[in-house]
């Protein structure tokens, strides 16, 4: 037992953590939607922490323009499936973590099946259509969804867990037009790491600090805003929950 958990010694030392929490993480299942700028730091931190099953879902192939921030993919992976290169890298970082891959686009039709028995959804997507589908799935399964988004030097993280909190549709009822957003790798790394932090708290039985709140991080000015999110009583997704 001791040898098996030596890898995690420094986190087991955390107050209130211990081997029991580590066992809990080993038995955990997480759905990571998107393995791009945010998904890479999320999956990296979950794998290093010893999460049992990390299910990564992305239908894209690696492109050279991804490589300024998506550090699980390398030059040799250009043209390959992102899920394959991410799995290869993550297994090298921690062979204890089980990496499941799904090379599909998330839709409202397939989302429940794709998420399966995951205990938490981490939204690392780049479009709102799939985010709304994930949100409906999270509500149906009664599991939290950790939202992340970036634009330029700004990163955002929020935890949606209706009926205790609003859902993403309460906060953003309309989707913006899709665009090629400017972004720096350090911004996605920091933002994704914060998403992973909230997921690890949840899976280890701690309180998620961003439940029902959104943190907006301006990495240019290094100033953070904290917003209290409120439910929309006429929200088409969560009003009946």
């Amino acid at each position, binding site marked *: 037992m001791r040898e098996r958990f030596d890898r995690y010694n420094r986190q087991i030392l955390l107050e209130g953590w211990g081997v029991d929490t580590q066992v809990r993480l080993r038995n955990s299942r997480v759905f990571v939607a*998107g393995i*791009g*700028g*945010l*998904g890479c730091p999320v999956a990296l931190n979950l794998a290093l922490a010893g999460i049992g099953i990390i299910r990564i879902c992305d239908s894209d192939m690696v492109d050279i323009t991804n490589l300024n921030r998506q550090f699980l993919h390398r030059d040799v992976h250009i043209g390959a499936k992102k899920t394959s290169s991410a799995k290869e890298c993550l297994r090298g970082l921690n062979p204890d973590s089980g990496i499941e891959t799904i090379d599909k686009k998330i839709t409202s039709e397939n989302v429940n099946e794709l998420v399966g028995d995951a205990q938490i959804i981490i*939204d*690392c*997507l*780049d*479009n*709102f259509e799939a985010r709304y589908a994930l949100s409906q799935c999270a509500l149906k399964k009664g599991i939290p969804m950790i939202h*992340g*988004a*970036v*634009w*330029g*030097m*700004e990163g*955002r993280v929020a935890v949606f867990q209706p009926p205790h909190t609003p859902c993403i549709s309460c*906060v*953003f*009822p*309309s*989707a*913006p037009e*899709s*665009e090629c*957003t400017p*972004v720096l790798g350090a911004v*996605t790394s920091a933002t994704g790491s914060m998403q992973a932090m909230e997921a690890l708290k949840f899976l280890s039985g701690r309180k998620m600090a961003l439940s029902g709140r959104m943190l*907006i991080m*301006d990495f*240019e*000015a290094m*100033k953070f*805003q*904290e*917003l*209290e*999110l*409120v439910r929309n009583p006429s929200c088409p997704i969560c009003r009946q929950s």
Partner: protein
Amino acid sequence: MARVIIPFPYRKYTDNEREIVIDAPDLEGTMKRLVQMHEGLNVLFEQPKLLSIFVNGRLVKVQQKDWSQISLKQDDEISLIIPIAGG
């Protein structure tokens, strides 16, 4: 003197300024003055469904026509929030 925090995608209209300080008694006056100072920010109000306004971290629930009801104090922080898709 309230501080309006400009969302990142719209800072091109404020010469990359993050915060605009405006002296107005209420939200309506503040927004009018903001657009007078930085005309390009009109785009924020062209798609009202995309914009949420928070004062000191709390959502303003009233519609645009009633913004004059939201009085502002010295050092209030107004956050203009739009959805961003990047991941």
